């Protein structure tokens, strides 16, 4: 039997039948392990050039999976990034010897994007220094392997803060710039990737290039939100802002649609500095609103608060009491809500982070809560990003899928302000093609709660969520890895093939993060 090799990024004809597995492009998404051809020559070459490369199961074993916990792979060797020159040497050698390089920041991917199926794993956490803080122009130059929480800590000493970053402590700056990054202030400040002013990038062929909107703009466009396909981000200059504590307000809804309408109303009118929705299933929907200054808070109270249709905590408790009194058979759900409230709410009001009614160090407060109450061995968080007008439908349909697959789950929704001048950045990214002004993102997060589900169960759940996206013309924050088949379904072959051609030009041996999207 002669089986032709499958070129990365190609989708061959299906010999089974045209309607086999309807709607799913036939593509291997859990990649084959690289066969190791030429590995020893490569190792000799990089070591001769002074790059420290560790081999063996002790060094490689700790990279066997990512936060998703459903993809397992091990590299042949690991290089901990030290500087751009070393990364350049590594990539030049990898290009010459055709050795795959998988780049890993915080390893918070969920589909195996940062898991190496053979080849070299480049651990960026070795490049984690803050290089320069410019308090005058409000920018910071940092190495890209730094975690956001370390960056926040450094900035905090200067009474400064980053603009927006994912609500966890351990995603890296470089990794986030490559995929998006959303925060509860993204509706006002945009996604994390949009705060990058300029980048130092090592291209797949080993050139060290500085890029920004003005300098090497095309590379900048491809690297930002580019899923690590067009270069390794080694340094980044980011916009920052003065540090401010937050005044938080919570409004409670029993309807997802009403809460989303109110969220979008606030975003459209720039009524708050922070806004987002966090739910306990679809029973308790919490609209979170926060402010950096007393003036903004006062303006909100004067102009907008009365227009919100949510309840305060006591009012909502009464509502729920009435609701479940009429539906005693749903007592289990009511008890879960109560237990969840008692466990989670105090996390957001910890006295060590509250002074004068304001929350300090929100990144720590949110991140602690995220890991403690939402984290588990497997992070299963499929998401949908849609234009504002289809968001309610996307969330409601996704909610129905969650209900079908898991007893308990959480939805997390935020708006993402788009920058019109960054349209080229958004091409084939998590930003949905039709979005104008704002895109809206919703994460669908089942509560695993110590239960063991099969990979197939998770995969079927994710597919059901992603199918909604295909149906609605949405996009996804967590493209890549095992979900890469969806890229073609969402964007169409023409656009994906155009990007694939660019990738082939930039990375002739197709070595850099090669199994992520193509």
């Amino acid at each position: 039997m002669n089986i032709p090799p499958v070129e990365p990024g190609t989708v061959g004809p299906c010999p089974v039948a045209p309607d086999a597995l309807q709607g799913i492009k036939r593509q291997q998404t859990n990649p084959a392990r690289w066969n190791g051809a030429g590995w020893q020559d490569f190792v000799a070459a990089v070591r001769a050039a002074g790059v420290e490369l560790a081999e063996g199961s002790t060094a490689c074993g700790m990279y066997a999976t990512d936060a998703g916990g459903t993809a397992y792979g091990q590299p042949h060797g690991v290089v901990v990034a030290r500087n751009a020159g070393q990364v350049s040497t590594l990539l030049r050698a990898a290009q010459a010897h055709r050795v795959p390089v998988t780049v890993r920041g915080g390893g918070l991917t969920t589909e195996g994007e940062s898991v190496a199926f053979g080849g070299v794993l480049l651990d960026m956490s070795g490049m984690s220094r803050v290089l320069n803080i410019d308090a005058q122009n409000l920018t910071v130059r940092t190495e890209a392997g730094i975690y956001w929480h370390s960056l926040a800590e450094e900035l905090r000493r200067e009474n400064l803060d980053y603009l927006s970053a994912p609500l966890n402590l351990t995603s890296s700056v470089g990794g986030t710039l490559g995929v998006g990054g959303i925060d509860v202030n993204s509706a006002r400040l945009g996604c994390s990737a949009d705060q990058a002013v300029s980048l130092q990038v090592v291209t797949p062929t080993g050139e060290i290039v500085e890029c920004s909107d003005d300098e090497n703009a095309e590379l900048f466009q491809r690297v930002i939100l580019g899923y690590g396909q067009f270069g390794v981000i080694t340094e980044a200059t980011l916009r920052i802002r003065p540090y401010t504590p937050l005044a938080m307000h919570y409004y409670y809804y029993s309807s997802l649609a009403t809460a989303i309408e109110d969220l979008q109303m606030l975003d459209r009118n720039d009524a708050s500095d922070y806004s987002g929705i966090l739910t306990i299933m679809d029973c308790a929907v919490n609209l979170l609103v926060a402010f950096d200054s007393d003036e903004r808070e006062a303006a909100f109270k004067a102009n907008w608060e009365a227009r919100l249709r949510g309840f305060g905590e006591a009012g909502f408790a009464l509502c729920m009491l009435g609701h479940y009194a009429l539906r005693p058979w749903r007592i289990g759900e009511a008890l879960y809500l109560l237990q969840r409230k008692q466990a989670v709410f105090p996390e957001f009001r910890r006295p060590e982070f509250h002074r004068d009614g304001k929350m300090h160090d929100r990144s720590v407060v949110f991140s602690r809560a995220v890991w403690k109450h939402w984290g588990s061995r497997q992070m299963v968080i499929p998401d949908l990003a849609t234009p504002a007008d289809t968001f309610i439908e996307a969330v409601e349909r996704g909610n129905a899928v969650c209900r079908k697959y898991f007893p308990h789950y959480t939805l997390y929704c935020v708006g993402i302000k788009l920058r019109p001048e960054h349209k080229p950045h958004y091409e084939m990214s998590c930003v949905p093609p039709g979005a104008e002004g704002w895109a809206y993102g919703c994460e669908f997060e089942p509560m695993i709660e110590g239960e063991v589900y099969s990979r197939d169960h998770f995969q079927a759940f994710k597919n059901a969520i992603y199918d909604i996206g295909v149906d609605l013309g949405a996009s996804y924050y967590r493209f890549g890895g095992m979900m890469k088949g969806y890229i073609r379904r969402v964007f169409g072959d023409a656009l994906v093939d155009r990007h694939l051609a660019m990738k082939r030009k930039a990375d002739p041996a197709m070595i850099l993060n090669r199994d992520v999207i193509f």
Partner: protein
Amino acid sequence: MRTVDVVIVGASLAAAAAAKRTVDAGLETVVLERKELPRHKICSGILSPRGHRFLLENFGPLPREVLHEPTSCRGVTFHFPCLVEMPMDFFHGTTPHLHRKYSDHWAIQRSGAEVHDQTSFAGLEEKGDHVLVHARKHGEPVTYRTRQVIGADGPSSLVVRAVYPDYTKQIPWFFVGQKFHEIIDCPLSPEYFHFWFHPGLGHYTWSHARDGRQIVGVGFKRGDNFARKHQVVEQYLKDKHGVQLKPADDDHEGCAENFGPSLINRYVFGKGNVLVTGQAAGFLNMIGEGMSCALHSGAISGEAIVEAQRRNRPVQEMYRRMIASEVRRCSDQWNPLKIAFDRPHEADFPEALMKLSWRERGLVLRDMWNFIVLFKEFKWGRQIAAAALQRPIVGGYPIQKWL
């Protein structure tokens, strides 16, 4: 003596899935196969959609060489003695009709594992921190020293016999056989897999088209006569369905099957550093489709080894924790409560039933009951009922019955 990380016994789809996981994780993996590859394997070849998806996601697009003609199957048609037909399409479209000889070879090659064919498993010695696997290659003894063994060698598993010598005596055994006929006239749709709920024909009676011929297959309790059973089915198809076939060709085939463990939740998962997976462990979906659960359980056995090494936990503990989800899914297929109130299968039986008239529904349910009575001698009824009642209470099936 060769020292490796994992030895997998068998080169089937379960073995390929397990090997894929261990090889991906960088573990040195050797697959032992008794026959020369590619080897023949008796099978209907009709893979369920979730099995198809697994193959695509893990091994890539299927080459044409691994498929029979017709290359795809639209669904399953149930036939009953009352002559009511219930065609049911698979969810998510058609599925592949695998040529097991080539599909298994393709998958094991794509897994990246080192395959030692013509190497028969002969026994093992558990040494606490490693296992010695004894085998014979061309009659010569060979020994492997390995950290873990995965037994993926099908229903008549030698690995299971090595670990649990009495197990094979504790479960009922069936024989399934199929004969291939040139077609004169066959009104049965070639797009469907046909299955008969007919106690007079056998415990498992099926027919479908393959490479221009018609398969007539029958399964029965071991000890009965294949030729006679087959003749009854052939005559029935002729009389009741107008199927005109030439006499069977010479290439008929059959094998022993361990149909039953997944009905009553009596799986066998191994001991110490030896894991058992696939049909060897007892996984079999309803209508006898074992490939999709072989793929998934095989993958879980590989994942369990990787996970156990990462967490420094006993591999059995990890495997049994992780396999519970697949047990739940597979045993749900046989759970009468699930069948009545949920959709555990990959085709919609309740919907097909509701398309029938009230009278036909009554006849179908009566015929199904008569068919179930055929299995009365195995005393599965109470065990299935007990498991079905426990399912909603504990959220799964009790693990005490697993070996």
